[in-house]
């Protein structure tokens, strides 16, 4: 979803000798597991799978690989696909067709620069390249190198849906993402409003929620609904502890805001790699609600949506309405807004500012954890899912107006929608770029954001 498009095209790792095709696959799996950190994002964020490299001892230069397509978590070989290789001058060197087991290998005349092109026309029906721009891979061979080539498959996108259908589909996706950004950034915005802290570690609260829910659900075996509720409570509690244990003492010491910002960056780095250390670099799904078929939304035949996405959107709306009511209608919400507006004035009117700030952290952390669970439900859970969301959250709250609760809602929603709709024009892997550019333009035109008050901020 928010993962930047990062295809691991040409495997750079050396390949040891392995005997027999039966054991090859297994050793490769183990090796892949061991190299998870190397491949990091590359192997993880995609539902379809890479053509993994088959290993063989060969002293001469060449390319090899196995074309597989992931169907229901199982790798199905893709046979009969032609791959043509040309050299740096464009002269044809040779071509090869993938066998019954999807494997292919081709000897090349020597070290140098080559381009391998997969003939899309020879793909079986229903299978397409995940990224059409990656039909051609350019690579260089060193002497004696037998290079693995990976092509990534996914659903066939050759039969493009009509523009209207795509707009509707992307709108639904955008609403889902926008709601997630809105939910997670309420805390970020309120924390900024009440304490002035630009919390770069907020993404890690999102990841924390997702990981705790995954652990309770997958490892302990609690149903996701209860695991989710528990994770939200734990996320809120951990966030509150962070305020009591770290940020409140720092505020007491009179640590500057910029110093605290740098501290939050250190904390983000520490937590993120702690997650990686504990959880590993793979993305993992929850035990329930794995792959669902899309059902027709409202029976109109316009938009397909999975039931879990429908539930996720519904829940998000309910939560956001509750948050909005809490902030506007309750005494505590009023106190929050008062502190965000002017902490000194709030303190002098008898509001316990530290308590309000603690509450903001707890609520913000709980909402972030909820967002993390939604991300895990829509995609899968990973160690840096929150960090990837962080810049979008910043874009959202800047757009909406820094420090206001409603600004975060509106801005996050708009950013999510914009990101998905922008894929109509820009390549999917660059969709976040558009959102970040919008951020820059907003700062130029209306620096206080949509809902922010016009005031001198320079």
């Amino acid at each position, binding site marked *: 979803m928010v993962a930047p498009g*990062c295809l691991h095209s040409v495997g750079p790792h050396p390949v040891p000798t392995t005997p027999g095709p039966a054991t090859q696959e297994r050793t490769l799996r183990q090796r892949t597991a061991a190299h998870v950190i190397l491949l990091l994002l590359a192997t993880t964020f995609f539902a379809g799978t890479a053509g993994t490299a088959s290993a063989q001892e060969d002293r001469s230069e060449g390319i090899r690989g196995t074309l597989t397509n992931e169907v229901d978590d199982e790798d199905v070989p893709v046979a009969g696909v032609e791959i043509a290789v040309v050299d740096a001058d464009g002269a044809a060197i040779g071509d090869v067709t993938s066998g019954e087991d999807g494997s292919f290998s081709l000897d090349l005349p020597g070290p140098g620069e080559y381009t391998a092109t997969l003939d899309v026309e020879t793909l079986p029906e229903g299978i397409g390249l995940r990224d059409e721009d990656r039909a051609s891979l350019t690579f260089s061979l060193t002497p004696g190198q037998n290079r693995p080539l990976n092509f990534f498959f996914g659903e066939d996108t050759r039969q493009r849906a009509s523009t209207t259908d795509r707009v509707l589909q992307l709108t639904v996706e955008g609403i889902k993402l926008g709601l997630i950004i809105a939910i997670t950034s309420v805390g970020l915005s309120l924390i900024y409003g009440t304490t002035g802290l630009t919390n770069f570690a907020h993404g890690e609260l999102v990841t924390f929620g997702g990981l705790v829910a995954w652990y309770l659900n997958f490892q302990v075996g609690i149903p996701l609904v209860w695991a989710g509720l528990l994770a939200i409570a734990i996320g809120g509690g951990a966030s509150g502890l962070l305020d009591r244990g770290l940020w409140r003492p720092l505020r007491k010491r009179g640590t500057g805001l910029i110093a605290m910002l740098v501290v939050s960056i250190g904390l983000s780095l*520490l937590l993120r790699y702690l997650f990686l250390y504990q959880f590993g670099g793979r993305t993992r799904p929850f035990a329930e609600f794995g792959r669902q078929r899309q059902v027709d939304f409202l029976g109109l035949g316009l938009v397909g949506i999975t039931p879990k996405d429908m539930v996720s959107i519904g829940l998000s709306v309910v939560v956001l309405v509750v948050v909005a009511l809490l902030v506007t209608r309750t005494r505590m919400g009023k106190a929050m807004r008062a502190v965000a507006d002017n902490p000194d004035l709030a303190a002098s009117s008898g509001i316990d500012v530290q308590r309000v700030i603690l509450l903001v952290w707890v609520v913000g952390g709980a909402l972030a954890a909820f967002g993390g669970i939604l991300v895990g439900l829509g995609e899968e859970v990973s160690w840096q899912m929150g960090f990837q969301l962080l810049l979008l959250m*910043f874009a959202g709250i800047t757009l909406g107006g820094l420090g206001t609760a409603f600004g975060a809602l509106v801005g996050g929603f708009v950013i999510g929608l914009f990101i998905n709709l922008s894929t109509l024009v820009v390549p999917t892997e660059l969709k976040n770029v558009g959102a970040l550019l919008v951020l820059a333009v907003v700062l130029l035109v209306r620096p206080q954001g949509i809902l922010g008050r016009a005031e001198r901020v320079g």
Partner: protein
Amino acid sequence: MDWGAIIENGLRAAFGLEAAYFALAAIGLNVHFGYTGLLNFGQAGFLAIGAYGMGISVTHFGTSLWVGILVSILAAVVFALLLGLPTLRLRADYLAIVTIASAEIVRLVFRSARFQPVTGGSAGLQNFAGEFYRINPYSPGRYRLEAIYNGALGPFDVVRGLLALALLWIVVDRLAPGRLPGSRRSPQAAAGEGREVIGVREMVLLVIAALILVAGLTPVSFTQNRMWILTVGWGLVVITSLLVFLLMRSPWGRVLKSIREDEDAARSLGKNVVSYKMQSLIFGGVIGSLGGLVFVIGNQSIQPDNFGTPITFFAYAALILGGTARVFGPIVGSMIFWALLSVAENGLQQARGAGYISNDLLTATQVGQLRFMLVGAGLMALMIFRPQGIFGNRREIDLSVRR
């Protein structure tokens, strides 16, 4: 455990390519953050622009390497203008958000499959540094940091000896102000600082002096190509530091520092604050792009994912460790930062190999992750307990007075 190898690798890291690269990145950040108070969290973007400006010119447009380097510098200037225009009029944290976002944009665009013919996509660019190594003055072979190891004194030993002497002189001068001939420190001024007998600074200086001497006894050596890029890299570090030193003593530098201390006061004295900030952003960004150039020419390869956001945070850690708003801060910070990382990583790997730490507790890949955790924890601890780093002046770095 092979302590000799651990120390040797630590020393190699302190003088190696990464240390020179991060020193340049941190010198640029020092101009931004240390002297002007600009929160630039997109230094990785400047590094990437420096690397790709040259790489694309050479590999795609077939220009010579030197033209490519000029393109890199120009591209860094343009990038600074693009970053600065929307944000320099706004509050400091807006710049932080926009710069970190821009650095990500730059990386995503460079690694995008759409521009693969130009940027090489996620595989990056290679084969551009030939011209640089063709003028390598070092003849083939391995070069040690010194000659004591070979039983004869060489030019490196003289340089090392002088460096160690200079450090010792500084320490003695700090501990007994005004006693040494030519000392500019007066005992009264030192008393006014109320310093402890021997502080962190003095201890670090002594350790560095000792290590510089010890380097002569270890077999740390580099190939002729590495030696050549290291000479150029550290040469650039010295030149840019000298430039920063002179500029910060000039009226121009004083305006930058006054903006850091109180923007409104500087404005009320008729200074065009936005223009000065922009000049600072460009100056520091160009220094950063030089760092990117040194790194990719040294590696002879450009990988887009080498320029992720953690790189900026590493550079900040190195800068704050050494001491912000100090000319030597980023240099010493970067050397110590990489030496510490290397010692930590090698120490853990060796402890694993020797069986002190079981494989269940810590796998080989997890050692690398532990490294990032250490940087994060170190950055927090530094900022909380010693924001001035090793050499900084706490009063000058006291960020709480800003805003």
